[in-house]
């Protein structure tokens, strides 16, 4: 997850999926795509995201399509999971987040997923009560950072 979008040239087609605020974060890249006269498509989320149309929209895309998604932190992770299920790899997509970034933390003892705010370095696992020290070891499979035993 990034805080801003980066234009990746020479793709067959570009998709921009975002709510209103997210579209603002993508506007520079959209302009660049327009200037380069590449093919593109927009998908606008309104209110609480309705995932079915989004899923179907992604599913009908062809190989060589590059995906941008910009949403707030509460829902961006789910959008990413759906896109990956359909087959968008890390090289074919960018996920842009706005609002306070909440990181997911994987508990090393019980595998529970917790949330930590941006500046927190230690949290208590909500599932098993272990105090976790937040590491920078990240899993794109779990979309989470590893939390280690904080105190022996």
């Amino acid at each position, binding site marked *: 997850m990034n805080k801003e979008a980066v234009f990746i040239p020479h793709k067959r087609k570009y998709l921009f999926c975002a709510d209103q605020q997210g579209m603002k974060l993508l506007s520079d890249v959209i302009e660049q795509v327009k200037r380069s006269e590449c093919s593109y498509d927009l998908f606008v989320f309104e209110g609480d995201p309705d995932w079915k149309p989004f899923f179907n929209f992604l599913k009908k895309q062809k190989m060589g399509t590059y995906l941008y998604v910009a949403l707030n932190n509460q829902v961006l992770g789910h959008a990413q999971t759906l896109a990956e299920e359909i087959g968008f*790899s890390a*090289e074919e997509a960018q996920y842009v987040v706005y609002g306070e970034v909440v990181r997911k933390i*994987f508990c*090393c*003892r*019980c*595998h529970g997923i917790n949330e930590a705010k941006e500046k927190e370095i230690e949290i208590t696992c909500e599932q098993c009560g*272990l105090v976790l020290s937040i*590491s*920078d*070891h*990240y*899993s*794109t*499979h*779990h979309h989470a950072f*590893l939390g*280690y*035993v904080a105190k*022996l």
Partner: protein
Amino acid sequence: MKWNDDLEHFPYPFKGSVYRYSNNSIPMNTPISIEITPDYKDEMLLKRNLLTHHPERCYQSLSHTTTGQWEIVNLVIDQLVTYYPQHFSVEKKDAEWTFHNKIFDETHKFTFQDERTLPCEPLAFISHHVQEDLLFMMQRDGDLYLDAGQLCFPANWSLAFNLGMKFKSIHHPIPGFKEEGMDDRILQFLMRLEAGNPWERKNWSLMAGDRLDTSLETFDKWGKLRKQVTRENAGELVHLRVEVQKLFRLPRTNSILFTIHTHLLSLEKLASNHEWLKQFYDILSELPAHILEYKGISLYRDEVLNFLNHRLKGGKVR
């Protein structure tokens, strides 16, 4: 449990008097991914127990790995019956296989490549018959991914967390590994691994205690022993932990089987070989802080050095 502490067959890992991370892989003389040792029964009972009671910790797989898992079953069974015919045999009638584990007096009948005829996934099934942990890495998009594995005896890492991870991300926590370019060199080496030319290497660490199952999931329990090491108890409490790691290319799926056989030796036993004692003392004295920290030795390094030094001077601790 007390392991064999077998000095004669211990895969002693050191050369020279300085240790640094390196790609110390060598081509294998005998191309065999597994080894049956005198601890077989005890270790298998422990392993089966862990697989039964802690499946999420000890076994993980992604759904696209089934073909590769069967490749592993084929390779491991062929090697078991070739190198240990006194302990294992197999009869194959077309796809109908009957596999015998004579050590446990077990017979397993299944249809090759039909997982409905097995009680569990193919990789989990064969894991119940070998002491090694078995990891399966798939190669695609110029990278290697840990897409399935059975891991009962990890050196403080989590298979559940690392599932689906790329090679370099798996090794991200090792200090200096990326900075020295080791991660890229080893990845390139692994991607060029050829079928029929397996390689092996040894990796080592020290641990307080003699557990084989030092998973990250249970670190809060076993890690505490690190604080109890003294010069007096280091000989019995602290163990040199050596992993014999073997790498096989699986030609059908172009993936890699990575097997890990873990051996433990108490420092007491190690110290009974004077050459090893001297060499290990030199290596540990010189080891940089970032390696000590990653291998989990920092907390009790000084106590261990005191113990080794005392032994070098001919002293008996007790």
